[in-house]
Every structure is written in C-alpha cells, then in structure tokens.
C-alpha cells in the first residue's frame, strides 16, 4: 500500500504502484528495463514533468509506503550510486553539474516542499522525479520489484505504469501475473495498475469507406487480429474489437481503422483520384508578387531570399532606429541573437546579402518581395504580415536615379500615374527625414494619398553598420495597397 499525504498536492499530487514477483534479470533484460523507463520518461512523461518511475528491490524495504512532501532540508538519504547521506537541498547542488539529472531539477527546485517516498521503517525510496535511494537499488540479483510512479497527470501516470508492467511481467516466475498496489488518497483506496480492457464496436463498411478498400467483416477482423487487436464479428455484421492496456494510443475508431490499413498494407491500397471538382484560385497577393518579381528581375535586379527572423540590432541600431519605436514582434525564447525579432523591413536582409557578396563585380542590384511582420493590436493575434518590395543599388556612386527609376517602372507596371500636382490621383515623392537615410537624400513615396514607403541614399552609418564601404541607395514599399 502507498499512503498519500495531502502535503504532496501542491508539488506532485499523484502516485500509482505495482509489484512484479520473481523476476529473473539478465544483463540484457536489466538494460532493457532501464531503457524502457528512460523512453517513457522522455516522451510520454515529457521529460519527467508529467510522471516519473522509481523501481526498487522489494526485499530491502517494507510496506506500507508513505508518499509525502517535506522541506528540502528535512529529507536526508544516500542517493543512488553515492556513499554518504545528502539532504535534498544538498542534492540540488550536487546534481546542478550532472548533465543527466540537471534538466529535471527545475521540476521541483523552487517548490517549498519536495516529494519523497518512505517505507515503514523510514527508509527513503526516492526523491521523485530526481533520484532513487541507494538502499533499495535494483541489481541483477533482485527478485521482487516494487514500482512506484509519481505524477502530475494521473492519466499519464497510469499509462506509464500499465506499459511498464505489461512489458515486463513476462519475466516473472508466473508470467503475466502482476501484484496490485493500493493507493490510499484522500481517505479513498484505489488499486493500481488499472490494466483496463475496453471494447469498441466498428462497422466493416466504415473501414472500407475510410481506407478505400472493399473488405468484408470477417476480413477486417482477420486484419485486426494480425495487429494484436482481438476482434470478433457479431451477428449484425458489426465487429467488436478489444483494446488491451498495451494500446493506450487507441482512443478513437479511426485508430482501429489505421491498424486495418496497415495490416492491409498501405502500398496494396488502390490509388484513386477523388471526384472532387474545384476551380483553382491563386491568392491575389501571391499572384501580384510573382508578377512583380518577374518584372523587377527584368529591370536588371537580382532576387535575394533572406530570413524573416533577425536580431534587434538588424532592424534597430544598425538602421539607426530605436528598437522601442519599431512595431516589432519579439521572440521569447531565441537560442541565438539571430532570432530575436521578426523583421519589420526587408532592407537589412538585403544589406547583409550585399555584405556577403562584396567581392562580386559592381554594381550590385538586389531586390526582394516578401513579408515583414508588424505588431498590430487591431488583429486577432496582435500582429500581421505585410508584403513589401525592397531593392538596393550598391556602387561607387549612390545611384539614387537607378533606384528611383525602378520605383517609376514598378508604378508604371501597376498603372499608378505620376501625380504632377502632388494629389491623390497617383504617386509622387516628397522630402522626408528618416534615420536610416542620409539627410537631404531621402524621400517618402505617396501613392493615392497614402505613404507606401521610402527611398533614398542610405546613411553612411547604416552602410558601415553593415560592414560596407561604398554608397548605397535603397527602396522599400508596401505593395498591399495595389491589390
């Protein structure tokens, strides 16, 4: 019996257990036993956060066992593979340099109390989910195994326990016999492992309709038996399928249908074409983008394809802008500086491309038409993409007229006339100041009365910021108004 003290409710509230009697361990079986626990810990138990298993030599300990939570300094025992006693607080210190155990420490480290399992004599079995005690260690000589599984997600804990005992009970003196363990929790006794069998009734027709093969009920039952799902055809032609406790992955009839398909053989299924008639439609913004890409390339610019993530400096300091003033989307958990924010402009990526290709013959004429990401609290997720066109000209002379020429060409292609009277009838340029451009050499582009972007000669500090040394002019506009 495992007795659960209410003190664990705040840290790791559940525990389930089982006993395997008369197990014969060989080296291979022992390794496999440890491996299986490791796999369950990593995947199903999501790195021990949801559940963790402790296995013990039952002959070295005595029930009933107590599962409780105590302040870190009050728990003292000899942990696995150590020779002297440590308090659990000291263990946190000890294992902070241990590459294997280190990742699990944060699961309980900051909790005021740590979970611990004691036997009837006060021997510490384990400090879940970190380490077992040396005292009850399993060896090749161990015969009777006590398994405890503490968890924050009871469903996962039950699955872990079921899986472990169903896989290893075959090595017991009486194979496939598992001794249950009672859990006393909140005054109620639950018996584990649950080893629940469940049945599902399916129709052969439903299987055939989903998989696309014509199978009679008996054939479906045969295929399922091949997959170790006991199946029987009922009088009304339905099939009753028994799902064993080893198959916690089967949660819906569609999981059974998949087993039929696998048993039938994916590669034996006849390839058919759906009769679904649809009329294809391009996304307008993508169609416009592709048409513009062709046209800009025909105008002598070569296409770049740069990353949509970048560092804060790329869109901020290097462009002589303050990151706080930019509506950038910030990433919470970047592994490197290159993924701090989503880009808010295409120009930095183009300048980096120029930097990497400085040795190419001049002039370098590059463009990109792609999405930038802007924080916009008026949208569902608080951010939106915007399709931009950007181009740079890098040469011994700034070539403002070249970039300007490209803008005129793009406007011509989009049938936006030059507005001589600077009205909203077409597009025109007007002087503007922008930190990224050289003073007096920047203009904003106004189309149909709306500012769609900027062009100009880049500021020398921007040029040197990207490790370049020649004049460079740039253009960046939003093309979405022209949809």
């Amino acid at each position, binding site marked *: 019996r495992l007795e659960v003290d209410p003190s664990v409710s705040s840290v790791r509230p559940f525990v389930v257990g089982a006993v395997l009697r008369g197990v014969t361990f060989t080296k291979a079986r022992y390794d496999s036993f440890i491996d299986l626990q490791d796999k369950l810990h990593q*995947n199903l138990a999501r790195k021990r956060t949801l559940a963790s298993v402790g296995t013990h030599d039952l002959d070295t300990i005595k029930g009933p066992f107590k599962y409780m939570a105590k302040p870190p300094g009050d728990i003292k025992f000899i942990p696995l593979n150590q020779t002297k006693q440590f308090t659990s607080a000291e263990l946190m210190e000890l294992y902070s340099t241990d590459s294997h155990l280190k990742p699990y420490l944060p699961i309980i480290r900051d909790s005021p109390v740590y979970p611990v399992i004691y036997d009837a004599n006060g021997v510490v079995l384990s400090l879940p989910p970190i380490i077992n005690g040396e005292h009850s260690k399993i060896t090749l000589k161990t015969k009777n195994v006590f398994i405890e599984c503490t968890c924050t997600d009871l469903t996962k804990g039950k699955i872990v326990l079921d899986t472990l005992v169903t896989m290893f009970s075959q090595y017991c003196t009486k194979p496939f016999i598992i001794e249950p363990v009672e859990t006393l929790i909140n005054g109620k006794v639950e018996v584990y492992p649950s080893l629940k069998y469940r049945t599902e009734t399916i129709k052969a027709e439903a299987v055939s*309709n989903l998989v696309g093969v014509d199978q009679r009920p008996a054939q479906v039952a045969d295929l399922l038996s091949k997959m170790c799902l006991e199946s029987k055809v009922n009088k009304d032609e339905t099939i009753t399928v028994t799902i064993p406790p080893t198959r916690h992955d089967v949660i*819906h009839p569609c999981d059974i249908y998949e087993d039929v398909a696998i048993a039938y053989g*994916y590669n034996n*299924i006849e390839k058919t074409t759906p009769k679904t008639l649809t009329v294809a439609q391009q996304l307008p913004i993508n169609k416009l983008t592709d048409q513009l890409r062709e046209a800009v390339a025909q105008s002598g610019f070569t296409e770049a394809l*740069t990353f949509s993530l970048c560092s804060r400096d790329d869109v901020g300091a290097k462009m002589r802008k303050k990151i706080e003033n930019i509506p950038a989307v910030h990433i919470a958990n970047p592994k490197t500086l290159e993924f701090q924010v989503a880009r808010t402009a295409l120009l930095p990526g183009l300048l980096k491309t120029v930097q990497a290709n400085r040795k190419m013959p001049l002039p370098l004429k590059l463009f990109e038409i792609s999405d930038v990401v802007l924080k916009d609290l008026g949208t569902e997720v*608080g951010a939106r*993409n915007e399709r931009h066109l950007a181009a740079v000209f890098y040469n011994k002379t700034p070539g403002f007229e070249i970039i300007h020429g490209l803008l005129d060409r793009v406007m011509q292609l989009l049938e936006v006339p030059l507005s001589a009277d600077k009205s909203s009838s077409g597009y025109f340029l007007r002087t503007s100041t922008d930190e990224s451009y050289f003073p007096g050499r920047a203009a904003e582009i106004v189309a149909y009365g709306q500012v769609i972007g900027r062009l100009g000669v880049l500021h020398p500090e921007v040029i040197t910021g990207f490790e370049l040394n020649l004049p460079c002019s740039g253009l960046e506009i939003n093309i979405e108004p022209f949809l």
Partner: protein
Amino acid sequence: FTSLRECKMQDFGSLILEELDKANQLDSLKFAQRHEVDEQKIVGAIKSLESLGDVIQTKIYQVKSWQLTAEGKEVAANGSHEYRVYSAVPDSGIQQSKLMSSCGAFGKVGFSKAMSAGWIKIDKSQGAPVVMKLVESASDTVGEHMVLIQKGESEKVDAKLKGEYKKRKLLEEVVDKHYTINKGTNFRTKIEKAPTELTADMIASGTWKTTSLKPYNLDALGVETGGGCLHPLLKVRAEYRQIFLEMGFSEMRTNNFVESSFWNFDALFQPQQHPARDAHDTFFISDPATSDRFPKDYLERVKKVHSVGGFDSQGYGYDWKIEEASKNLLRTHTTAVSARMLYRAAQAPQFVPQKLFSIDRVFRNETLDATHLAEFHQIEGVVADYGITLGHCIGVINTFFTKLGIEKLRFKPAYNPYTEPSMEIFSYHEGLGKWVEIGNSGMFRPEMLLPMGLPEGVNCIGFGLSLERPTMIKYKIDNIRDLVGHKVNLEMVKRNPICRIDKSGTGEERRLQVLNRRWANIESKLSCIQKQMEVMGISTATAHGMAADSSDGNLMDVVIKVHPDKPPYSLQLLLNVLKKRFKVAASTHTHSSVKSAGSLVLSSDESRITADVKITLIYSNVTRPTMIVKNAQIQGEENIVRYLARILDSRGGGNLYESLDSKVVAQIDNILDRLTDASKHSVSTLIPGILTKSKYLAGNRVTIADILAYSLCKQAAVSNSSIKDWSKRVEDAIAKM
C-alpha cells in the same frame, strides 16, 4: 617606318611578308631581335596572318633556356648564401646563435652549405657553440655562376651544376616557343585587313557586295547578358505552385507568421503536453504574447475533446488550459492555416468541397545544421470532401509527385498527432540507390474535424513536404545556407538554370535524350517516305528499308550524281570495302552540264552483267550529291554513305554504322550532322577536336563518320598533321576490312 617599335600589328604583318618574299623563310625570334621588338608582338602578327588562309605556313619549335629565380637574382647581386655566412664570421670566431641572427633568412642554408664546403667549423669546447673559419679565404663560385647565367652565358656553367642550382631553387628552366615561317600556297605580299563588322557605310555604299569580312571566332563565348535573375528556391516554388494549380488546388492565405497556440496546436488535437509544444522546438512570442479572440463555442468543443473526449473519442484525459492555448508563437507548420480554412468551410451554410494548398514559411526553434534552419518553406496540400478515402490520399500524392518526375513511391506507417491513418512518403532516389523520405501525409482525425462543425462523412486528407530539401537535392547543394538567407552566393543565383522540375538527369543523359528524339524523328520520316513509296507502287522490304533490299544476285544498282568540285572520296573508300565482299561494277561519267570531270574516277573490272552491286558516278551540275535508287532519290553525301553502309552492315558484315552499339550510332549521327553543317574552316577544327579523345571520330574503330569526314577534308584540301595522320589511319583501316 620611322620607328618599328611604333608599328601596329598589321604593319609587322606586311613587314614579315615582304621579308619572307625575299628570304623564303623567317624565324620569329631572329626577326624580333633584328627589329628590336618584343617577340610576342611578332607572334600576334603571325597569328593574324595565319587567319587569312594559307598565306603563310608556320612551324613551332621550342628552345629551353636557364633563368634565375628571385632567389637566384639575389645571389647574383649579393653573393651566395654560404659565402655571405663565411664572410660574416670574424677571424676570432663568433657564437653560432649570434651568427645566425646576423645572417637572417639565408643564414640556415648558408651555414650548412658553408659547413659542407669545409669553409667553417663549430667549436663546442667553450659550452655555447662557436663558429670558426676553417680556410683563410673562399671563392664564391655559385655567386659567379649566377652572374654568368644572368648575362645569358649559361653555356659557360657546367650542366651538372645547373641541375644542382635548379634543386636549390636558384635556377629554373624555361621553354620558349618560336616560329619558323614559310610561304603558304596563297602567299602574297599585300594584305588587306578584312573588316570585322558590317557597317552602315557598307550598306549605304553597297561595298558589302565586294567586302569580305573577317570570320567570327565561334569558339569564343558571347557577351554576358545583363538583367536580373530570380532566386533558385523561388523558381522551384513557382513550379510547385503551378502543379497545385494544374490539379485544381486553391491557394490558402498564409501571410500570418504569428499564430496562436490554439490554431497551431489545440485545433489540430495536439495535446498541450505534446513535446512539439516545448520551448525547445517552438518560438514563442513575448510581445504580443497572447491572443484571446477565439470562437467561443468552438473553443469549448476543442477543450472538451482534449480533456474528456467526445465525437467517439476517449480524449487525452487531462486538464486543458486556455492559458496554454492563448500563447502566441511563430507558426510551426502551415497546417495551422489549413485548420483555419477548414473551420471557415465548416461555418458556411452548406459545405463546399475544398482542395487547398500553400507554400510558405514555417519556424522551428531547432538546433541548426547544414540541412536545418530555424525557418523553412512548407508545401502543403489538403482535400476535404464527402467520401474521401486513404486510397484517394495515395492517389493524389501519386499524381502530385508524378508531375514532379518522381514515380517510384512507397508509403510507410507513421505517427502524427492530428492524422490517423498517417503515412510517411518515400521515393526511390536513383542517385543514392535507396528509398528516402520525402514527405508526410494522412487523414485528419475526427477529433480535429468534427469540433469545427464539419458534417459527419466529410473526410480530409493532407500532405506536406519541405521546399528546401528537394531543391537542395535537385541542385546538388549540401549546405542550406548556400541556398537560403543572406549568405547565398549571387553568382550561383545568376548561373542557376530555369527550373524544369520534371526534367532530371545529368548533361550526358539529356544529350542522349535529344539524340534519341532526333533518331525517332528520322525513323518517322523514313517510314513516311516508305509509305509514300508504297502508294507509288514501289515495294520496300523493312522499316530500315531500302538497305535491306533483298534481291538475289542484284543487290544494288545506283546512280550517283555529284558536282565535279566535290568528288565523293567517301565512295572510293566504301567501294574498296564493297569490292572485297561483292562483285562490283563501277563506272564514272561526265554530264554535259559541266566542263570537266572531278578528280576522282571510280572504276572496276567486273562487268555490269555479272555484278551484284552496280554504281554509276556521274559528274553533273547538281548542288548536292544525289543518289538515284529505284526511282527514289537520296540527297546529300552523308545519306549516300548511310545507305551504302547499311547494305554493307546488313549484308557484308561491315560494322560501319547501324550494326554498332546504339550509343556509337547516336554519336555517328551527331557527327554526320555536324559535318554536314560545317564549313571548310570548321571541318579542319572540328575533326582534331573530336580526335583528342580517341583514334577515330566515333567509338574505337573506323565508322562512316570517319569516311564522310575523310571525304570532306580531301574535298576542302584540309591538311594539317593531325588530320594527315588520321586520314592515313582511316585508309589503312579500310584496306584491312
């Protein structure tokens, strides 16, 4: 000329011709020395004279001479290293370390040379080694020799020593090429420089009629085109997009990189504890950190199916939290968008079948390596309709990949939280010789579709792959950073071919495809001719035809008309072979339309009555050689050669053409085509070009490619040494047949 040094190339040319006229032979080196100009300029003039046709004949000869290396020059100026070390030793001796530091770079070499010359010795009796002079004076032979060689008097230095100096890297042997110039058959002293281009003046004045232009060098490359280029990956994207559109798929709106966990995971029935939702795999957003505008009732249904089940599902049995679903992230797959699209379809008053696709960026917070980046393009296709099956899924995927030129596909069971059944897609990679995974697919789970409100019975299949991986394989790129991002090499972008995604294979394979197509074309033309002949009442035997004509005792009776300027020397060769196998009657006549016969006369001793093969050659005023065989005409020397070779191959064991390996036959056809189109000048360059690799033009034995080329060379009187050698080889091989 006031000063020869100011002469232009053309002037040198005239001068060479004038002197050659008097002297009959010139030497480029001596000519240059006599006129005190750089020999390279003279060589340039010679090359330019050579291009005029056979005005001069040249022969290259090589002269070896000794020159000082940079180190050798230093020795000539400052004395040998060993002498300098010796000179640096005072009579009282010097500590070795001091000596070495005072001698600098040459110290080490100089020291060991001086030691072995016996000029100095080391005294270690005092502890630190001290260098002492061993001889009172030394003479620097090496230094003197360098000076001699520098003055061009290298013959005064013993050959053995020169070899030694070469090993010491003081000397190097240089080979200079010089020319001996003789008069050519078209020798003349006056050369008019041929204009290089047609000009407006020429057109206006009409002088183009009498002007001969300098021939183009067709082996040089043209000027590079200007203009920009599209990015390779996006060119491939355009192809994939096109394929989806051809298959009737509509494009999804994927321009929203920021997504909520709800749409990215929860809507797809991906449990909140799933490892993919870990910060190690997904980029979460700190600003704007959360979303909350979810469809309320749909959210409730999602929560229920996750936590307690429903829609025939057991659910995952955990405590579903809105906080987890609200977390914003950079979408990890475009399936998030598919979920939105399917939800939208479910809200329509009546369900309309959907075929959707997208190709756009997705983000993974993964460990980066040569093939993985934090962002990549996902290609995704989705079909939703009543009665869609797994067989449909396999069928759609099969059609899709067939359009990409990938036909060998296999499907393997896999696990995916939102599809069931799930399949990994494998294709057989011919290059690697194994099955490689190329994508993932499956049918969306009912727990995903039904909470959206899609009607029961509507099934949905989905498949996805990355855009980068197949592109890297296609363009043989190992590192993904060479393809995507700012580190891409723009030169690669520029050189990248247009994307013909269903066309794969090496250049050689593609060349064979072209040849095969051309061959198929010839065959279809032949069968067309055959049909015409049948209509005209002429009997033919087999598809290959006329050559396999099976008449007994009268194998062939042909009349061949040629212009006297182009005697068919190929016939002469073939006749020699025919004569050894059949009784051949040959005769030559001249038609009244031409003044005289050609230089080739075919004849034989056999009488026409007993002969199996009868060939009548008539010189007449025809533009192309023409063979008349049973009322049909065969035009062109190359086709006459083909015809005769077929007879020889099929009836006489000739092995000249179609009885050979099909690759060689394709090669022969290619060469015959090139020869037919070739001008006189290009024949003379074409043949040596092919011969660099082998003794014969096609394969490793004489074929009709050699026979035709032989004939053309002889007609054009092309003779250079490599062509002469090869011509002799062809004649000998024919004689042995």
